[in-house]
């Protein structure tokens, strides 16, 4: 363990305490470092997608996709055991099928799809759990459902980093059509912007990110790092870009803080990260600068813009 140089402003004991609390867990343990790198990669890519999902009123779709990949992962698991490759391929195929199915349901019901989507993901979840249970014990089952941030191996780390890089590149490339398709799909169709294709690309990115997140957080928590920072970001940004930055920032904070909380209090790391993100959301609703509750209460009506 490296000793920090004592700074002049704060007494050395204080720094030691801080160092033990914030730095030592990552410096001392390889599994903590790997978990941190994986979660940071997820934190940069998934929350901006969450912002688009929220703005399209598709928050539920993320949940559906996260559960929809489970039967595919289960089949991959039945074929090849706990192999990242097999489970990812299975999950990708299942996720795309569910994504297209959800889109078809949405079109068929004219946007009133929530009940059908809820039905779809419940069925997918039950099917996945049933498939896994035919071959596996409760340890593997809970690994698949809840993930294990602290058991992230090399292939999983490469998957997360690769998906994050691909997502950021794709977002930079397709930002304008994505915003247009999201804001005004009618106009996008009228100017022949191929909104449908951009939307498909977007759904593929969501499936990939859910898959990557599943490695660390499990199917039940995978959406947490995507949606909670995005929903919280609504209270920090006035533009799509601003919200995306805010969401990534909140997710990075939740990842670091969640891992530390999980380390110090011996809590499961996935839920700890999602809980910190949840706390950030509550804080944002209360004190966020854009339409936060406190701001609204304190501002006098005469001076409101």
């Amino acid at each position: 363990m490296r000793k920090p140089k004592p700074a002049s402003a704060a007494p050395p004991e204080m720094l030691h305490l801080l160092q033990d609390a914030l730095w030592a867990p990552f410096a001392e343990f390889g599994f903590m470092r790997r978990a941190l790198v994986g979660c940071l990669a997820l934190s940069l890519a998934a929350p901006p997608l969450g912002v688009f999902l929220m703005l399209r009123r598709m928050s539920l779709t993320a949940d559906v996709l996260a559960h929809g990949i489970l039967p595919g992962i289960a089949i991959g698991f039945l074929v090849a055991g706990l192999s990242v490759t097999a489970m990812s391929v299975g999950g990708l195929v299942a996720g795309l099928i569910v994504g297209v199915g959800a889109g078809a349901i949405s079109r068929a019901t004219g946007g009133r799809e929530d009940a059908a989507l809820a039905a779809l993901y419940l069925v997918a979840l039950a099917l996945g759990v049933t498939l896994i249970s035919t071959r596996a014990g409760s340890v593997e089952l809970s690994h698949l459902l809840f993930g294990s941030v602290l058991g992230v191996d090399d292939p999983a780390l490469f998957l997360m980093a690769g998906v994050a890089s691909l997502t950021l590149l794709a977002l930079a490339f397709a930002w304008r059509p994505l915003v247009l398709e999201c804001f005004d799909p009618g106009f996008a169709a009228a100017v022949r912007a191929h909104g449908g294709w951009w939307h498909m690309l977007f759904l593929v990115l969501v499936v990939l990110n859910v898959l990557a997140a599943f490695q660390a957080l499990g199917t039940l928590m995978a959406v947490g790092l995507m949606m909670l920072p995005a929903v919280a970001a609504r209270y920090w940004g006035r533009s799509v870009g601003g919200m995306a930055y805010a969401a990534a920032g909140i997710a990075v904070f939740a990842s670091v803080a969640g891992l530390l909380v999980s380390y110090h209090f011996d809590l499961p790391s996935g839920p700890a990260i999602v809980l910190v993100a949840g706390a950030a959301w509550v804080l944002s609703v209360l004190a966020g600068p854009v339409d936060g509750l406190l701001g609204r209460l304190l501002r006098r009506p005469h001076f409101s813009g």
Partner: protein
Amino acid sequence: MSRGEGIVLTDLTLTHGRRPAVHHISGRFAPGSLTAIVGPNGAGKSTLLRAIAGLHPAVEGKLAAPRRDIALLPQAAALDRAFPVSCLDVVLFGHWHRAGAFRALRAAEQRAARDALAAVGLEGFEGRPVGGLSSGQFQRVLFARLLVQDAPVILLDEPFNAVDARTAADLLALVHRWHGEGRTILAVLHDLELVRHDFPETLLLAREPIAWGPTGEVLTAANRMKARMMAEAWDAEAEACERSAA
């Protein structure tokens, strides 16, 4: 600005699923014409506009329109006004058919968008999020986007609904300016006084065309009564189009 044949409908039929929306309509919107489309609710007015814009397929018959040259203003309610974009961003999307998904916008294009905002009376609103606008101001922003699109054919779906009188007057002046520039304009409207006063041509539609021509000859009491009776008959009547196999 006007070119070709305008918009030609030949025995055109449009449906929503199996429900008929517009039956067997034939006629022509001449280049440079300014036409109001009126009729009872559910008469297929919006569907006809969407079909002309290429957003709704023809089930039967033919529709010839210069699709690349058309700008459509949809009904205001169709948009999510809470979306976090600025007024300038919305107007800049009007450059899409030139700039596409990737090309950076030129300085002249940025300036055109600012000028368009100024032309609809929203100077200084560039950075404002659309969420804070009144519905009249929002409609002005959408008209600014139409200005930037600079299309020879402009389709307006209930452009003056839910906007204040002053906004309606300003936007109507813009419509007349476009007409003066030789653009072809079709507008779905409900206010018959406005139609009589400002629109030389009218199509009275009740799923079938009741009358189509100079406004004074179309908006007769007899024609309007006929349209109303057809609308009352829809509620009672059968689903499918009986005049053809489709």
